[in-house]
């Protein structure tokens, strides 16, 4: 009988070990595949830093490897193939750059691995790929706030839209025009600028000549700073409401505080503008780890990894289980509350922040919560 009990105990232990072993032995593996060099390096590094901070703070051990895509779709596709070749990938922190996401998405779908991104390109969640999760409000959200702030809060009716010729710029322009139309406003001027434009005097002169009462800007970081600098230098005296590139501390660092007077911007969040104790703790930890201030992209990536880790802590051990968890869970992150709209759009809120002309730290002046109505 004693022997039988020993046998039973040993058998139970073995059975338990067998059930637990796959879960504990299964490594949590989050490769970070982002642009660290090339034209999207600023945004990519912010994304990488946010993800790495979340991984470092995680209560469980997370295997991770940062792979640079070089801001090139082919580089992103190769990097993902390489990361997947070893097997055991739980989820991928995937590029902020829309064209790179479009190159990675079919591979992720075949491998059945979720991609956690902060790319704003609208198309990535419109292709019916169930493995894409976007943790930054896309243009469909932010441009509602952008246009509403211009018309309803500033009371401006003659916006001049200045946008980039890139896919990012075109997408922003389309959503801005659509939202202005809903508000009964027609832009007095629309002008596309390529990345290489150095002198902003021509476009600013055209906006003035067209009778614009506000500049609505949707440019990348460097061109945004160039435009604001030159508008201040020529004494244009028009309010500027910029896209999310303006919220980045690195963009504000290119300008004198007085040049920023009257400038506002839309974004998903603004970590440097402060917040509750959790935000302050995030700010301090980020500055300690990277020696610079975080932006909304860092925070979006931080929230994305933390949500995926929460799904893992809830018992998900495979990529497919993580995908299922992400598509169902509602998660209260630092920037906002995240929930999938069924297409992988997780972020549904936006903020408008403004600079007072005295410091480079903006103040959040309006928050647009649950713009899509998903929450």
């Amino acid at each position, binding site marked *: 009988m004693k022997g039988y009990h020993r046998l039973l105990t040993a058998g139970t232990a073995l059975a338990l070990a067998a059930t637990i072993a796959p879960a504990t032995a299964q490594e949590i593996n989050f490769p970070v595949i982002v642009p660290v060099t090339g034209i999207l390096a*600023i945004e990519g590094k912010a994304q990488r830093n946010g993800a790495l901070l979340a991984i470092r703070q995680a209560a469980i051990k997370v295997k991770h490897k940062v792979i640079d895509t070089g801001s090139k779709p082919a580089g992103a596709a190769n990097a993902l193939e390489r990361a997947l070749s070893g097997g055991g990938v739980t989820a991928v922190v995937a590029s902020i750059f829309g064209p790179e996401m479009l190159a990675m998405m079919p591979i992720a779908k075949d491998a059945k691995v979720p991609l956690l991104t902060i790319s704003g390109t609208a198309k990535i969640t419109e292709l019916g790929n169930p493995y894409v999760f976007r943790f930054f409000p896309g243009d469909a959200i932010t441009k509602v706030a952008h246009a509403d702030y211009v018309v309803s809060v500033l009371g401006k009716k003659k916006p001049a839209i200045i946008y980039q010729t890139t896919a990012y710029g075109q997408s922003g322009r389309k959503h801005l025009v659509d939202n202005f139309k809903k508000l009964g406003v027609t832009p007095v001027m629309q002008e596309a600028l390529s990345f290489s434009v*150095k002198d902003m005097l021509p476009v600013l*002169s*055209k906006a003035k000549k067209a009778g614009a009462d506000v500049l609505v800007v949707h440019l990348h*970081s*460097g061109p945004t700073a160039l435009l604001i600098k030159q508008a201040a230098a020529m004494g244009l005296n028009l309010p500027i409401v910029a896209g999310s590139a303006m919220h980045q501390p690195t963009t504000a660092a*290119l300008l004198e505080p007085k040049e920023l007077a009257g400038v506002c911007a839309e974004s998903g969040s603004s970590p440097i503008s402060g917040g509750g104790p959790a935000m302050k703790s995030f700010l301090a930890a980020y500055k300690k780890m990277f020696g610079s201030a975080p932006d909304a992209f860092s925070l979006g990536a931080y929230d994305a990894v933390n949500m995926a880790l929460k799904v893992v802590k809830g018992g998900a051990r495979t990529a497919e289980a993580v995908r299922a968890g992400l598509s169902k869970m509602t998660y209260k992150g630092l920037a906002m509350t995240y929930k999938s709209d069924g297409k992988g759009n997780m972020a549904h809120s936006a903020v408008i922040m403004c600079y007072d002309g005295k410091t480079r730290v903006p103040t959040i002046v309006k928050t647009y919560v649950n713009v899509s109505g998903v929450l």
Partner: protein
Amino acid sequence: MLLLQLLINGVALGAAYALVALGFVLILNATSAVNFAQGDLVMVGGFVSVAAAGLIPVPGIVLLPLVVIFMAVFGLGFSLLAYFPLKSRPTVSVFISTIALGIVFQNGANALFGPEPRVAPPLITGGTLKLGEFIISRQSLSIIVVAAILIAAQHLMFAKTQFGRRLRATAQNRRMAQAVGIPVNWMIAATFAMAAALAGAAGLLLANQHFVSPTEGSDLIIKAYIAVVIGGWGSVPGAVVGAMLIAMFEVILSAYISYPLATGLLYATLLAILFFRPQGLFGEILQKRA
């Protein structure tokens, strides 16, 4: 009034582009090879200015000689890596080596300074001058003056000094120059140093008004290449005129039509020049010389 303001901005931008194009032409004439890293050398000059300003917080005009000297030495090192080991190989080897080093410079700047755009100090002081309704940037005026001095100094050096004559002789016929006792290799190394020094000056001038980032050079080399094709392959005055023409399309024409259309018209003009005058605007001088 607006046209005058646009003209000043255009000339300032063109003057900075001219410095880039001149450095490109110098190396082209001395080695018959295209230096695809010339734009990246401008970027390096911009970051050197940013770093120098961090160490010595003085106006750009004080930093300019330091940046120029540093970049001249940098140019010598560049020639030792990109040109001299390959000088007896086909010129395509030098094309490739300059492309490779340009990528190294981009990634080096990214690693050292980060991907963010940076701003260098103004040459003398920032801000604007207001004359009635006419507002002009002090930096734009400073760029025009400094670039004009540098271009004139280079012209005088080539035309009036023995060193300049030796450089020209090396550029025109290397074997003949060697036969009459000119130290050709030293002349070529000096050309690389001068081209990099000009790039350094352009980097400092551009990095205040238009910022500097690691990928900046790729765009500048395209403009330098177009300027040289428009002006005449290897022509020094042609490079200056070509650079000015590009800036006029970018600044003046784009104020009246859209930027994309102005860019399209620039490339259409380039094609027309290639079709009707393939030697470029100043190409005859080059043909006579040849």
